[in-house]
């Protein structure tokens, strides 16, 4: 496990969260550097989504500290610079993609003109041009995922938190999303994403953090994980996390 350096954008130190008898996150320590792509990997119930919710300020940790740009994630100033894509692509079914972006853009304080131009750009970028007038209830799962990416990027955030972004995407869409993520990194954005898709993580991540039962098992660069190159991420994942399902 590596500690953060002075360029850390996001740090979690000894973060714990308990729900009743279940300790979802147990002394988690993690950091992300400015401009990197960190893959957050773990089995089902490892505490990934709980960690993400704490990063977004949905609730406070029971103990420990979370800092994003040195500030509390619950403040408006911090959240204005974060783009979030939820695991389940749930958006208002009675809206079109433009109306959805208009809504979220309004919540981010953007002007109507800014929203319009940015929406135009993003709708084309995520491959939803041509279905703008369709209501979201008529979108496929993959299309909803793309809509989710668009709304996460709408206000040009500096930090992207993506929860299972590759779920439901066809192979072409996955390639497009990978390219988009690399493009964003090249622009200086920081991306934090959780995934079960180890192959995708292997292709784009700078560092990975593996979590089991709410604790960081390993965090470091991919080449350190791969070691002599004879082991791939899947084998390392199984070795580190034991292949057991957590409660």
């Amino acid at each position: 496990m590596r500690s953060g350096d002075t360029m850390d954008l996001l740090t979690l130190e000894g973060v714990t969260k308990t729900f009743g008898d279940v300790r979802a996150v147990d002394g988690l320590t993690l950091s992300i550097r400015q401009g990197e792509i960190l893959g957050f990997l773990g089995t089902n119930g490892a505490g990934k989504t709980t960690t993400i919710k704490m990063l977004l300020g949905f609730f406070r940790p029971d103990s420990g500290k979370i800092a994003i740009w040195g500030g509390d994630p619950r403040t408006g100033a911090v959240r204005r610079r974060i783009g979030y894509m939820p695991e389940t692509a749930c958006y208002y079914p009675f809206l079109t993609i433009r109306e959805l972006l208009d809504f979220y853009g309004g919540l981010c304080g953007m002007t109507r003109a800014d929203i319009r131009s940015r929406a135009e750009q993003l709708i084309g970028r995520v491959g939803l041009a041509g279905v703008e007038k369709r209501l979201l209830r008529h979108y496929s799962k993959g299309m909803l995922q793309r809509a989710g990416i668009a709304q996460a990027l709408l206000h040009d955030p500096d930090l992207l938190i993506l929860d299972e972004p590759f779920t439901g995407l066809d192979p072409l869409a996955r390639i497009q999303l990978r390219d988009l993520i690399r493009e964003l990194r090249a622009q200086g954005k920081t991306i934090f994403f959780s995934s079960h898709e180890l192959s995708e993580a292997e292709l784009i991540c700078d560092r990975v953090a593996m979590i089991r039962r709410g604790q960081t098992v390993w965090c470091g660069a991919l080449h350190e994980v791969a070691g002599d190159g004879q082991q791939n991420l899947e084998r390392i994942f199984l070795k580190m996390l034991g292949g057991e399902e957590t409660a």
Partner: protein
Amino acid sequence: MKMCGRQTGALVRVALLDLYRRKDLIVVWLLSLVLLLPLAFFSPFGISGAGRYLNEIALLLVWLFSAVIGVGVAARLFPAEFESRTIFPLLAKPVTRGRIVLGKYLGALAASVSALTVFYLAYGVLCGLRQSVWFPVVLFQAFLLHIGFLIVVTALAMLGSLMMTPSANLTLCGLLIVGMLVFGQRLPSLIAAQPYPGKAFLMLVHALGPHVEFFDLRQRVIHGWSRVGWDVCAVVLLYAIGYAAACLGLAGWLFCRKKV
């Protein structure tokens, strides 16, 4: 300030789109038309000239449907968000929970008032066409106070949506509204006649319950009584705003503490 305005405006727009795309309003308007049109041609005992009964039934429908829309829209705002999980991307945006409550409330209110306006315009036209004597000032006051009614019931339903299940919320709101409309004026005499502990309970209801009967001017509109004093109108609207503010304050506090 501008940020606040944009955020609130965004929430209001979505509430309006939700109501109008559900097509509930069209069903309600059509139902009103179907019920009222045959009655408009009715002549009891072959004698024409009676019009107040039609006004009464029309206004009853306006009140019934506006209450259903107001309470229905507000009661499902938060439960629908939690159920469909759209609450997560919403909370991830740089908007405080209190502002979300306020924005959603204003959206629900705007949606209900827009539907109400159409009802009253249609009623005003019907009234004007049928009757030789028209009381526009009283009708305008009735419309104004009806908005006050929606201010209160929408806030109440929104508070209820954060405390209980949608069906329980709708039932409780329905009971409160009907109960107050029917018995609200008589509460002081009921209190005087009751022994304890019933008396204490009624006093509590009288003190804290939503006095929606304040906003009911149907009697004056239907039977051609004179208007209410404008000072009384102002007091009643202030009551509505105050009551709604108390409900929304409590709702905001509850939502801030709610685990997602």
